[in-house]
């Protein structure tokens, strides 16, 4: 259920500009408030949007994290496609069934 806490962190950042500011000032402290694996902390820190997608993060949450990390829309879409190339198909969650080859 560690994926749950990755998503919870993103949910909190999306909802609350103050937490967002705290996060970008001192990410390690914020990571400490959530039960996360090392792989998850690394993927969030980089950020490795493609890996987060492959881990199963819901894209309605992930999109906003990409935006606040400076990705524009084409970069965000490309990062997910690169993630699938590099790490394989989505591991769990809604998109485990999707081919991820893209439409446009």
């Amino acid at each position, binding site marked *: 259920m560690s994926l749950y806490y990755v*998503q919870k962190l993103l949910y909190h950042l999306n909802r609350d500009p103050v937490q967002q500011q705290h996060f970008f000032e001192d990410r390690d402290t914020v990571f400490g408030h959530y039960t996360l694996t090392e792989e998850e902390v690394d993927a969030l820190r980089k950020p490795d949007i493609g890996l987060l*997608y492959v881990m199963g993060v819901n894209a309605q949450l992930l999109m906003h994290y990409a*935006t606040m990390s400076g990705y524009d829309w084409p970069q965000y879409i490309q990062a*997910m496609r690169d993630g699938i190339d590099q790490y394989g198909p989505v591991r769990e969650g*809604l*998109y485990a069934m*999707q081919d991820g080859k893209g*439409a*446009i």
Partner: protein
Amino acid sequence: MSLVYAGTCCHSPAITSRGEMADPQLRRQLLEAFDRQRRTIEGAGAEAIVMVSSEHFANFFMDNMPTFSIGIADEYYGPIEDPNWLKIPRTTIPANPDLSLRLINQVMQSVDVCFAQEWKFDHGMSVPLHFLTPQYKIPIIPVNINCQSKPMSPLHRSWALGLALREAINSAPEKIALIGTGGTSHWPCTPDSGKINEAWDRTLIDHLINKRKDALLAYTDEDTYREGGGGAFEIRTSVCIAAATEEQTGEVWFCEPIPIYATTCSILSLYQQPLDLLT
């Protein structure tokens, strides 16, 4: 008899955020249909809009995920998204907590709705409101159906919610409009974003305007996901409005795929107050 109008509309954030990038003629027709819905709601004298949407983790998370929820706040707030991106200014949105309480108590007789005394609207509410009540003059009663995170309730319960909402609305003295807003086929924010299954969308919409209960309740989440993507779980919102308005055949006011908006955009009119009931 206080339901004065019911319909559905799309809520893709691209309609405002990437508005001008669409085919100009399609955009004009879409906005005309939105405006027709706005004028119909106003012309019917609606004193409140019950808006059934599916939010996208703006208020609700898996720590406490409501299947169905109705707002009971003194006022709402939105959009939660960056207003410069969504191109809708942030504002407070008028509420009617007394009407909320009456509707919730009535709906609770048959459907187990949760209640929420705070609510930050995301594009799922804010995009429709921007077109349907641009001055925010009509109080909103927000209703949410979980269409984001499994386990999700079966479609026949969204049907039951529609029936319960209709009964509750009819027992209120206020004139009330009922709007559903949720996706047809779309794969939001994923690498498949932009894919549209037009044939699937048109079949669904035909079932909706003809209130084909059996056909609508036969959709399984597995089929829906395969044919319509994760965004299509939001058909729960339209199924709810079809249930609430089963006695009338509806009309398609707009229905066209708009690739840059990443979905088939549609405006359906599903109930108009019969002439002999107009006051």
